[in-house]
């Protein structure tokens, strides 16, 4: 491995800007770190270069631990967005800088300089000053300068950010060619997904300081594992759908997902449909099996090769309603892109009614699909749905909060649950009797119960613990899903040897120690649940997520 990152973490002002990143980058690989601004990608790059010290974790270059090594001894080349050339030096002096520092003889320096100038297609520019070059040329000089001392790793921090589109394209090609010719391991940081696709062997996507997923561009695009990656990498229609043994139920259609979720039990899933996987036709019959619903073309934008449609779905018309657009919007819209041949075979106008079909559905493996605020009265449930942490969490997860009224909630074993099965994570308020209510919900099929105090805010630390081995995997999966949306530190709390009643008390004690903590706890045994969890749940001042799996 060329670059190995092991649980790298960096805080600024108590907030983790790089949070527990582990990554291996192979020899000669072109790796692109992609993420929105503020996602921590540049900080991570600077940490690899040695310009930023990490708080925790290990960085190794070619098997050599460099975590505490100064930047100048790491043997990396770094290229900045604003070129950062030495303006008082000629191109030649700039390129030879690293060689002069190393006391390389003039003849050797000159030969190396000429070789590099040829590589970046700037022969004969030796005696120019940076101010006399165009932006694209300056960045080429910066690349040559960064390569002069034959670094083992080339790091590029948004190198095309300051260039216009055409120069950008040209320089991209040059850099890719140089990288291939030298076979140098390269990490490029960018927020431009098109750039990432164009250059990367592998892409790593960062958000809120975490490396969410990494993989080949095509794999990430067609099989994202998280909502963020699905929507950040290209356009995506995200739906809450039902998955059963028959397939994924989307409106009138039951489509086979590209990958079947392992769980055959009927449950809610997050489904992703790429705009190019949506088909439109005059009638549902033309679409065959894939017919999902009727819709009305709301907007039509022609953009050269592709035509972009925004189609408003007509819910309910086709029997089973298509579940709301994942963000909870009242009327779900579908983004559709169509190629020229598709446009020719069926022309549409704005305002036209069309039949919508789906060619391919991808189901995200995320265990948290949506939230349902649950209380004994409709008013209480409605109020709970507006709890700030819940609203923020749902907004970040781009999912909806349903409201569920259970008049019998927590009233002994007799009361039946409402007709519908529990969908998504069920949320209840943290108050006296919350343990009773949580037990009641779990016994009736709820799999995740989130207990929220009225004033709870975004946690800074998430404690994770499972009481039984059977709940371990699910607890980890749910924790991962939560942590993707919360810039908090994760802390695994080891199992204590004592009895379970004391474990709950110990966890409560830890939570009471500092504010801003949240607990995710896995259980697989509901025996005397309310009694055992009394200390944790009844009037606790912390958010607590129970994951129940048997």
């Amino acid at each position: 491995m060329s670059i190995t990152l092991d649980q790298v973490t960096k805080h600024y002002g108590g907030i983790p800007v790089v949070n527990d990143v582990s990554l291996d980058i192979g020899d000669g690989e072109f790796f692109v770190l992609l993420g929105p601004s503020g996602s921590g990608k540049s900080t991570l790059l600077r940490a690899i270069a040695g310009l930023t010290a990490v708080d925790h974790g290990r960085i190794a270059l070619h098997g050599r631990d460099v975590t505490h090594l100064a930047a100048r001894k790491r043997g990396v080349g770094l290229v900045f967005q604003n070129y950062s050339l030495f303006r008082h030096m000629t191109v030649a002096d700039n390129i030879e800088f690293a060689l002069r520092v190393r006391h390389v003889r003039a003849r050797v320096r000159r030969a190396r300089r000429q070789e590099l100038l040829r590589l970046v297609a700037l022969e004969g520019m030796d005696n120019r000053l940076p101010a006399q070059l165009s932006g694209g040329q300056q960045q080429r000089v910066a690349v040559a300068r960064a390569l002069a001392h034959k670094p083992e790793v080339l790091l590029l921090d948004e190198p095309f950010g300051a260039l216009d589109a055409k120069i950008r394209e040209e320089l991209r090609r040059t850099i890719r060619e140089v990288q291939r010719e030298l076979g140098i391991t390269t990490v490029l940081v960018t927020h431009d997904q098109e750039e990432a696709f164009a250059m990367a062997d592998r892409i790593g996507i960062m958000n809120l300081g975490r490396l969410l997923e990494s993989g080949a561009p095509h794999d990430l695009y067609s099989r994202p594992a998280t909502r963020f990656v699905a929507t950040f990498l290209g356009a995506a229609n995200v739906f809450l759908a039902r998955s059963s043994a028959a397939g994924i139920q989307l409106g009138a259609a039951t489509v086979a997902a590209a990958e079947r979720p392992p769980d055959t039990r009927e449950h809610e899933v997050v489904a992703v449909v790429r705009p190019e996987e949506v088909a439109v036709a005059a009638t549902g019959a033309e679409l065959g099996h894939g017919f999902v619903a009727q819709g009305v073309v709301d907007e039509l934008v022609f953009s050269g090769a592709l035509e972009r449609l925004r189609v408003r779905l007509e819910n309910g018309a086709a029997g089973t309603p298509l579940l709301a657009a994942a963000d909870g919007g009242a009327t779900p819209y579908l983004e559709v892109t169509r190629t020229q041949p598709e446009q020719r075979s069926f022309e549409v106008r704005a305002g036209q009614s069309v039949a919508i079909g789906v060619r391919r559905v991808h189901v995200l493996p995320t265990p948290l699909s949506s939230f349902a605020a649950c209380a004994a009265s409709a008013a209480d449930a409605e109020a709970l749905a507006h709890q700030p942490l819940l609203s923020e969490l749902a907004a970040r997860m781009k999912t909806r909060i349903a409201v569920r009224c259970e008049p019998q909630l927590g009233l002994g074993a007799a009361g039946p649950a409402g007709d519908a099965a529990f969908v998504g994570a069920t949320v209840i308020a943290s108050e006296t009797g919350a343990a009773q209510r949580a037990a009641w919900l779990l016994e009736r099929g709820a799999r995740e119960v989130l207990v929220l105090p009225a004033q709870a805010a975004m946690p800074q630390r998430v404690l994770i613990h499972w009481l039984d081995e059977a709940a371990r995997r699910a607890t980890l999966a749910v924790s991962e899903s939560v942590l993707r949306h919360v810039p908090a530190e994760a802390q695994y709390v080891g199992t204590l040897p004592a009895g379970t009643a004391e474990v709950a008390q110990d966890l409560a004690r830890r939570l009471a120690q500092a504010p801003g903590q949240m607990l995710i706890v896995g259980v697989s045994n509901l025996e005397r649940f309310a009694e055992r969890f009394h200390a944790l749940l009844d009037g606790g001042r912390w958010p607590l997520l129970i994951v129940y799996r048997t």
Partner: protein
Amino acid sequence: MSFRKPSVLPGFGLTFGFTTLFLSTIVLLPLAALVLAAASMHWSEFMAVVSSPRALGSYRLSFGASALAATINVVFGFVLAWTLVRYEFPGRKLIDALIDLPFALPTAVSGIALTTVFAQHGWIGRYLEPLGIKVAYTWLGVTLALTLISMPFAVRALQPALLEVQRDLEDAAETLGATRFYTFRRVILPTVLPALLTGFTLAFARAVGEYGSVIFIAGNLPMKTEITPLLIVIHLEQFDYRGAAALGVVMLLISFAVLLTINLLQAWGRRRHVQAAH
């Protein structure tokens, strides 16, 4: 580039006319009068005044102490400007404002304040006394006063230049293998050299012309701690206007020569860059 460019201010004719008039009235005309007054002297008379041992001694002190003060200010002004530009710390704005204080203070006040502190029994002077260091009433005191009043010029000239030295440049140098000292010498210093020269020039020019603060701390012993501006005032007090004018002309010539040299130096530096490009 066109000589006449549309702009928000009234036309070129008006502004250029005003510029010439303004400069002539408050700069050129008084200087011409000075030269004229000196020119009415006989050459031998002129030489007797300007090359008297007392006058020569005052030039040495005036220009020597000014050059020393400007050098001190360039070095420590760099540190000050660097601290203010690069670091965020509580009270940064306050210190930044303090820099300008010598601008605003009547120079006599600065002189009196310095004398109080550095006199034989002053707050600092009393500790320097046993070490054999005398500040007040020596050339050291003169230099100190000149350093104080010219300090803002050096700092304010350097600040914008240091703002331009982006941290990225240092980061780039570091990843290329340079030590901090190498980076400072090869990257930072060359980048701010023009500003350093400007700062030196401004501080020097200000110090040469200083009068108010120096006379309090200098003791004004002829040949030892007497600066040229003071000598001019002494001539004036004796109603020797022509002698004062003669000394004034010499100061004018020396100052002009120094400033011209520095300017030429800067121009040469710039030209060297351009030449390197061909």
